[in-house]
């Protein structure tokens, strides 16, 4: 039986990777890295995990090593953050285009400059359009569970796409939480053997990565788009199976006291748990507030979002990234677009906060709710700035 133990979330993610019995891990140790890869290196060194652990000389090479490994037919994992993710940017598009089921944990941290390394979502928002499936974990248990789920989804022959599991830098990655770490025999009921669809083999020579002229490029992109949208079905299946086996249910958007709420908060990642406390306290004060936690960012669960916002009058998005020079943050754009052609009077407030590791507190959510109840929405508001 799974034991619930106090464990640093980074180490719990490494445990999940080990339980998934990966064949290859390639990572660059800095820019910045976490205990995830240190722990994996230790597991390989101690013979607990039978895998190749390759120290790349950059994040660009780390992800390139992963692509090579995945094409060769190995279950492949890497982890990165911030600048390292930005350095991988070019190759992320190619990973999805080659339909390689690489799994990567992105420990979300701010991008330079100024150099910062603390938590926010500005790194991964730059990878929005790369064609990867993206999960957001709100706590250590989800970080552990989603890592296992990611392999199942990525390697399903109906999907064959890379997956990013996002976990907040520091407020999740470096925090010790009580987490149910599954036993290997329990995990074996869920995990399946990785059978690559196409792998490099001299007996069946294939060309990977041919270039496409204008006559073929759009069709290739359309196929990728269809694959990403179609992954929804498999994600739901995998989540249902996971829920049946271990009793933890996953949905693209988790609602909390959302059904009868007049005003809804929308969060990604670890601040969802802080927001939950704020919701409880405000409910005690008689305010009908609820919470939506976005767990699946790509493919974006637009239908669920519309459905779950049907009764609410106001939606307050709390996001930890901004699109400088645009009208708000990336989640704000996406959510407003989702409702633009809908017959709704939903007021949408886009609040940007918690950049570069600035604390996001219960009071911040209360302030946001009170503000949204009294004021008309602006394009966006950046809160917590000293002026």
């Amino acid at each position, binding site marked *: 039986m799974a034991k619930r133990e106090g464990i640093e979330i980074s180490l719990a993610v490494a445990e999940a990777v080990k339980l998934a019995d990966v*064949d*290859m891990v*390639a990572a660059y140790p800095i820019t910045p890295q976490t205990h995830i890869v240190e722990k994996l290196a230790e597991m390989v060194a101690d013979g607990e995990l*039978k*895998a*190749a652990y*390759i*120290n*790349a*000389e*950059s994040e*660009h*090479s*780390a992800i*390139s*090593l*992963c*692509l*090579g*490994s*995945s*094409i*060769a*037919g*190995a279950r*492949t994992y890497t982890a990165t953050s911030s600048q390292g993710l930005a350095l991988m940017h*070019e*190759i992320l598009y*190619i990973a999805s285009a*080659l339909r390689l089921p690489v799994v990567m944990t992105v420990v979300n941290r701010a991008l330079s400059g100024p150099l910062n390394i603390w938590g926010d979502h500005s790194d991964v928002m730059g990878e929005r359009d790369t064609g990867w499936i993206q999960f957001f974990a709100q706590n250590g248990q989800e970080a552990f569970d989603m890592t296992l789920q990611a392999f199942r989804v990525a390697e399903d022959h109906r999907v064959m796409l890379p997956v990013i599991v996002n976990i907040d830098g520091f407020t999740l990655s470096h925090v010790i939480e009580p987490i149910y770490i599954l036993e290997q025999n329990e995990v074996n009921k869920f995990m399946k053997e990785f059978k690559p669809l196409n792998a*490099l*083999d*001299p007996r*069946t*020579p*294939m*060309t*990977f*990565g*041919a*270039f*496409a*002229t204008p006559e*073929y490029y759009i069709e*290739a992109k359309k196929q990728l788009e269809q694959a990403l949208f179609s992954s929804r079905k498999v994600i739901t299946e995998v989540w249902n199976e996971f829920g049946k086996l271990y009793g933890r249910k996953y949905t693209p958007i988790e609602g909390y006291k959302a059904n009868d709420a007049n005003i809804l908060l929308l969060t990604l990642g670890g601040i969802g748990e802080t927001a939950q406390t704020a919701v409880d306290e405000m409910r005690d004060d008689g305010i009908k507030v609820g919470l939506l936690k976005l767990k699946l960012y790509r493919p974006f669960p637009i239908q669920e979002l519309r459905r779950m916002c049907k009764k609410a009058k106001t939606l307050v998005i709390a996001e930890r990234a901004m699109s400088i020079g645009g009208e708000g943050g990336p989640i704000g754009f996406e959510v407003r677009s989702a409702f633009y052609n809908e017959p709704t009077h939903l007021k949408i407030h886009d609040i940007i906060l918690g950049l570069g590791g600035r604390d996001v507190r219960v009071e911040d959510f209360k302030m946001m709710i009170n503000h949204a109840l009294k004021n008309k929405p602006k394009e966006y508001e950046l809160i917590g700035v000293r002026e």
Partner: protein
Amino acid sequence: MSEQFSVYVPKLINKQEDFVHGHRACQGCGLALAVRLILKAAGKNTIVVSPTGCLEIISTPYPQSAWNLPWVHVAFENAAAVAGGIEGAFKALRAKNKKDNKKINIIAIGGDGGTSDIGLQALSGAFERGHDFLYVCLDNEAYMNTGIQRSSSTPFGASTTTSPSGAVSMGQITWKKNMAAIAAAHNIPYVATACPSYPFDLMEKVQTALKTQGPKYIHCLVQCPTGWGCATDLIIRLGSLAVETGIFPLYEVINGKYKLNMDFPKLRPVTDYLKFQSRFRHLKPADIAIIQKRVEQEWQALKQKVECFKKTGVK
């Protein structure tokens, strides 16, 4: 199949064609010739990784492919990393009994830009980590498929579209980066230079490399009529002239030990090589004298390395 083609008969060369006809290389392309010879030497159990470049562009316009072997292209600067990933994966899968132990050659074939400029870091990393693979740089001395822009491998004095000769410019003003020396400085077990004008030498070097455990590097000069401005029927002769003038010496560095494959009592003057190419047409006698002097210096330096190892008996 014979291993020493030059000693036995060329008739014994592998008749299998794994880089097949119908690709889009220019007439007289030395690169296409080199690839054909490399694959003949490597044989069937081979996987090829290519970075973006001439080779990738001429051989794989979707839905066509000139490769009769598994071939993969990811991006411009990471062929060595992708090859390293394949090698690492095979090693792990074999250790876990998920793959048989049959030897598979992993060869990365890049151009001079993808090797000596944008791909140098990934290559250095792969050498340092000790992946068991062969990297071949097919050096046509500029970014040819995108319109002949200079690279760090473009020779001194050559006119390219981004180092043009002009009223106050003599073309490229930097000296060609010595990639073979950089590879050798990683203390890898096998480094060689080659040119398809010497097909048996090239093929033997590929086979020697593939028999060696660890990272291997072959720097192969490939003629480019389009970028060099030379007649397409002259390319084999030009390769020989590059060697006979000492501009591109053929040598090997085996476990750190230098070995000259082709020595000459007297080098031909560099003009014998330069005069057939329009990229050097603008050079004045004084410029050519500078090149001549440098070539002689480098030739002597190389010979000293060869002699040094002979005297010390280092093996």
